[in-house]
């Protein structure tokens, strides 16, 4: 077997290539051959180290050193120092990277992994792997050294806020549940992650289930509960099975059950599966569903902390919230609070989607700007297009335009910009996106998922959807914008739960920032982004058309006419705007007007 003592991974992402990554690889190879190290050090091409903006960049293993800005001229020096003399070359190292890499092993400089620290690193079906990563140490610490009040105090001091979306201080919630009268109390984990495109909870449940179990056990100790429920959506069968295995292993080791670690504290857990209803992510609806009823929300107060599951005081937190608790207990409130902004401490996971070069799940400290997330972590907009807006917070969130790109991200600043943190979904939209169409998409979703219990949400969302649909179809009327504004206000103030109260957000935010697009649709019968089918016309440019007949032969409704080698013409009345002609044309002669 051939062993290399060191591997050099050079990033060959487009940006690094532009900055000479291939030249760097060649120079490294040549130098390694010249120094006779080629059998000991292997150079590999890779992608996504995360520092392309400082590129070209490379990682050197096993040390895990991240070098940036190395030119072929620097290579002889670097090889001599690093590989011959074994000295790290500080001048190519970014200090930030060094600190983060050492502490948390995060893949990019901007990311900090606390929630996701074990995901993809440990075997989720082997409890020993979790214990090796300091698992259940925090539970042992609270059970043997801390009073429940001290646990709550630590969580309060850490500044942790509910990661399900609303951002209520977790320590306070625990305090309320602890102080609520009653002998029987419950802890519940909300794992009903329903926002389209957001899958941070799935990743934690499947990749690090014990962190959630441990966090829940600590919460149970703090509030005085002995039974917990994890409510997981049925769309996540793998997560449910991983959780059940993890719970069984924890029981076998005595980390769940009676007299945990000889402390006299009893706690056990059960997984409850949903059956496909988005509204069950709302805490009172979730409780109704665990009780075996229709998952319909009820008015609050009373809050679950006072009257929850079977009318007993119940602490409901999100997966992400519970999963960071063990870390906070072990490393201290000050450590956690050292990340983030004044009012929003720690880190948050976001699911990046849409027109970005790198989509996926990230974890960043609060206070990072949208620009850093989109351009540094997400690699910028696809195909070099311009940024238009980012939809944050799922279907109940809003669209934030370019002027907020430098806003430091936290719960308060997002509210100010007209959206919510939500579960952390981020859909980046480029210049080709029609904002009315985006609002319509989200309204279609909430209208479908409205549980129907209260009228403003049930009927109101449907009316909004009808108006938006008619605007997109070119049938918008004078007064529609004002009607939308009225309806949004009514639904927001009169709905029973967060779903209805948040449902108008996509419309309100697009009206706030992109009102001109609504106006163009209604008054000029024009879709500025050329998306809404009823408002666009396919035409053939006489300059580019060669008369090859491909478009005419492919048109499903025979709307295209023209002789061979003559310019073809599309009949706008017959055309169904399917766009096939545009796809098949080899000369880019079909244009949208």
């Amino acid at each position, binding site marked *: 077997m051939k062993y290399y003592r060191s591997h050099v991974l050079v990033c060959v992402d487009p940006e690094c290539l532009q900055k000479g990554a291939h030249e760097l690889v060649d120079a490294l190879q040549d130098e390694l051959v010249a120094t006779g190290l080629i059998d000991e050090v292997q150079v590999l091409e890779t992608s996504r180290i995360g520092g392309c903006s400082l590129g070209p960049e490379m990682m050197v293993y096993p040390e895990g050193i991240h070098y940036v800005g190395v030119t072929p001229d620097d290579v002889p020096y670097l090889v001599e120092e690093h590989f011959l003399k074994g000295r790290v070359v500080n001048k190519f190292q970014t200090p930030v990277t060094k600190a983060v890499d050492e502490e948390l092993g995060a893949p990019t400089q901007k990311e900090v992994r606390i929630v996701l620290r074990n995901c993809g690193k440990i075997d989720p079906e082997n409890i020993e792997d979790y214990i090796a990563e300091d698992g259940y140490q925090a539970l042992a610490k609270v059970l043997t050294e801390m009073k429940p009040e001290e646990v709550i105090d630590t969580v309060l001091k850490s500044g942790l806020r509910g990661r399900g979306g609303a951002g209520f201080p977790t320590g306070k919630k625990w305090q309320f549940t602890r102080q609520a009268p009653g002998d029987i109390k419950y802890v519940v984990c909300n794992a009903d*992650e*329903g*926002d*389209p*495109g*957001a*899958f941070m909870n*799935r990743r934690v449940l499947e990749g690090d289930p014990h962190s959630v179990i441990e966090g829940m056990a600590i919460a149970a100790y703090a509030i005085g509960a002995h039974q917990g429920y994890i409510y997981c959506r*049925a*769309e*996540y*069968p793998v997560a449910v099975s991983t959780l059940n295995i993890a719970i069984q292993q924890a029981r076998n080791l005595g980390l769940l059950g009676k007299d945990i670690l000889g402390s006299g504290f009893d706690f056990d857990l059960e997984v*409850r*599966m*949903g*059956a*496909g*209803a*988005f509204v069950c992510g709302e805490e009172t609806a979730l409780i109704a*569903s*665990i*009780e*075996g*009823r*229709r*998952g*319909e929300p009820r008015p609050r107060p009373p809050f679950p902390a006072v009257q929850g599951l079977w009318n007993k005081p119940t602490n409901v937190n999100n997966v992400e919230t519970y999963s960071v608790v063990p870390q906070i207990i072990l490393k201290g409130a000050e450590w956690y609070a050292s990340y983030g902004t004044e009012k929003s401490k720690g880190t948050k996971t976001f*699911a990046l*989607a*849409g027109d970005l070069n790198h*989509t*996926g799940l990230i974890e960043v400290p609060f206070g990072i700007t949208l620009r850093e997330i989109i351009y540094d972590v997400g690699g910028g907009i696809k195909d070099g297009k311009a940024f238009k807006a980012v939809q944050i917070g799922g279907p109940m969130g809003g669209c934030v335009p370019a002027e907020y790109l430098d806003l430091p991200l936290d719960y308060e600043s997002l509210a100010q910009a007209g959206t919510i943190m939500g579960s952390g979904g981020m*859909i980046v939209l480029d210049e080709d996106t029609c904002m009315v169409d985006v609002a319509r*998409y989200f309204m279609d979703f909430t209208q479908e*998922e409205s*549980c129907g219990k209260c009228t403003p949400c049930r009927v109101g969302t449907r009316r909004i959807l009808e108006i938006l649909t008619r605007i997109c179809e070119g049938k918008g009327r004078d007064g529609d914008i004002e009607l939308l504004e009225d309806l949004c206000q009514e639904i927001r103030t009169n709905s029973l739960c967060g779903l209805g109260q948040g449902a108008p957000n996509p419309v309100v935010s697009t009206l706030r920032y992109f009102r001109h697009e609504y106006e163009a649709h209604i008054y000029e019968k024009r879709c500025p982004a050329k998306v809404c089918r009823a408002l666009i016309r396919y035409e053939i440019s006489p300059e580019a058309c060669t008369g090859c007949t491909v478009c005419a032969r492919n048109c499903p409704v025979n709307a295209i006419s023209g002789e061979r080698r003559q310019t073809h013409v599309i009949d706008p009345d017959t055309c169904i705007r399917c766009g096939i002609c545009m796809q098949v044309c080899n000369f880019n002669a079909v244009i949208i007007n």
Partner: protein
Amino acid sequence: MSVEIKRSEKVIEVVNSAIEKYGAKREELIPILNEVNRQLGYIPTEAMEEISRRLKEPKSTLFGVASFYHMLSTKPRGRHVIQFCESAPCHVVGGREVFEALKEELQIEPNETTPDGKWTLITTSCLGVCSVGPVVVIDEDIYGNVDARKIPEILARYE
């Protein structure tokens, strides 16, 4: 007649085993309904009646719960249920074409069952595997990176 008796015997048997597994308690209603739905493909009226008798809950309540959740069906379904993810992330990476191909191949619309009783096509909300979209789930198998051309081959794996 005998076929029908056999069928209702089977229904009662499934209900019994589900109640035995979870217990005849009100809070276990959703797991019980889920189990019956999984075993029989849907929740027949006879099952509803039996559960109502055993749990001492009115049928109207049971129907209220069963009709509330997307994944529970009170109408018969095909031997295999195809769930298509209709969320935005899948939609933008070619989901529409896959959906069209499914409808074309099976000759049915969403929420319909093929005349031979083999397939039912339904849509589902986000399955959280957006990076490998478009995503299709058949019974309990999940398929990612599906493209329209792969549909006939995937369907052929099912009896």
